[in-house]
């Protein structure tokens, strides 16, 4: 796959269709892949990577990249293509300046999942198809590829790209509608109010307000963010009280409600391993329940649920009527 991608990228660079490529390269560790811009065939040969660790969603980089001179080539996984579409819909990406190649994804290895399985002292990781070999200070360990996926990939919503690409390398996959991605949300909903409160206090009190979740989120791309406004009372700084921790995450999730494509980047980048996607998925689940099935970034014609209304919408007291635990 990687060879085919590099080959095509070189062709497009050589014939002048594009003058740079947004892709992935190894970061400090081989498994810690970082987004990068490549401008020449040599650079592509040297650094370009596409493997089971290439999780970063490249669509957000196009907001800035598409405003530079010349055309940019980008590779989008199915997840990323929804974010890309959503950004296009919001006129954040200049489509004429982007050449999109859709590439398949079989789920990305998540370092958090590997660590949670009790493997310590990781120095390097390799994945050849089904087996993940983990080199640690205490010798090599193995794990199956399926077990090493992050939560977002284990409950992958689709392997099919949103219709936005110019060409495709590899084969198109199928959407996955088994509803498993809401399992954890349902589990939380079944808890009592106090248990839920304690669950979220436990998770959100770990927050160090690094703002990584905000910065990585393709939906979260306002030019002036409310969290950068000193008058908002919740500007960029460490949260002082438990309330501020809650408030930051509540507002962050609310601001992307109806626009979140569930790409799971927020959880992936969280240095404290807070399951932030559970907040976004709650909104997605509620929107599906209240206003009909909606997948952000799927098509251009539909209005985002919070930008639209019908005369027969449910009243907000649906929340009390729904019952559940107090």
């Amino acid at each position: 796959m990687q060879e085919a991608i590099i080959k095509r990228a070189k062709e497009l660079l050589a014939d002048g269709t594009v003058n740079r490529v947004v892709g992935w390269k190894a970061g400090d560790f081989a498994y810690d892949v970082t987004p990068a811009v490549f401008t020449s065939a040599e650079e592509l040969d040297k650094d370009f990577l596409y493997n089971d660790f290439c999780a970063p969603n490249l669509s957000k980089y196009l907001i800035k990249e598409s405003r530079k001179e010349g055309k940019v080539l980008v590779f989008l996984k199915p997840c990323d293509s929804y974010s890309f579409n959503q950004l296009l819909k919001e006129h954040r990406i200049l489509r004429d300046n982007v050449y999109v190649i859709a590439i398949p994804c079989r789920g990305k290895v998540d370092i958090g999942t590997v660590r949670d399985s009790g493997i310590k002292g990781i120095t390097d990781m390799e994945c050849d198809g089904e087996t993940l070999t983990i080199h640690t200070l205490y010798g090599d360990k193995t794990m199956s590829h399926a077990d090493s996926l992050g939560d977002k990939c284990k409950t992958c919503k689709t392997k099919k790209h949103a219709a936005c690409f110019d060409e495709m390398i590899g084969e198109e996959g199928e959407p996955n509608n088994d509803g498993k991605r809401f399992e954890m949300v349902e589990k939380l909903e079944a808890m009592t109010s106090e248990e839920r409160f304690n669950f979220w206090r436990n998770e959100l009190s770990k927050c160090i307000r690094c703002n990584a979740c905000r910065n990585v989120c393709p939906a979260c791309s306002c030019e002036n963010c409310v969290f950068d406004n000193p008058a908002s009372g919740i500007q960029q700084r460490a949260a002082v009280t438990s309330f501020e921790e809650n408030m930051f995450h509540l507002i962050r999730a609310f601001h992307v409600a109806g626009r979140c494509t569930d790409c799971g980047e927020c959880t992936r980048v969280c240095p404290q391993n807070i399951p932030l996607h559970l907040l976004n998925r709650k909104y997605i689940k509620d929107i599906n329940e209240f206003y009909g099935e909606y997948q952000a970034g799927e098509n251009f014609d539909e209005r985002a649920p919070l930008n639209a209304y019908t005369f027969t919408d449910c009243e907000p007291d649906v929340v009390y009527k729904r019952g559940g635990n107090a």
Partner: protein
Amino acid sequence: MSVNTEFKPLIVAFCCNWCSYAGADLAGTNRLQYPADVKIIRVPCSCRVNPMFVLRAFQRGADGVILCGCHPGDCHYTSGNYFTRRRMALLFSMLDYMGIEKERTRVEWVSAAEGAKFAKTMNEFVETVTKLGENRRLEDLRCKKQS
């Protein structure tokens, strides 16, 4: 002299200028009683209420927040309250999901002619919140007076 230790909730009511605020006014001119614990904030339209306003009210020590607006279809700006309806349904659901008692939040449609409904709603809401007691789960301790 005995000190009154009975719990008095602090309720913030966001009322839209065109319907609910006039409704509150009517409740007043009709001499209808509702608790003084309700602090009314007038907003141009119920959809002016940013979710942050609700959270900020809780942060500053409110025990309950209620939004009042025109009945759906009667909005002075045609469609404002339809947006409120969607927004608040999602926000309240999320607050509930995070373990904030859902009874502390409410949306009620009160027209300018419904002074009685306004008083009744407020009485009910204050009663509900009083039963729940102080809002401990979502408050900023710095804003509370040390007792």
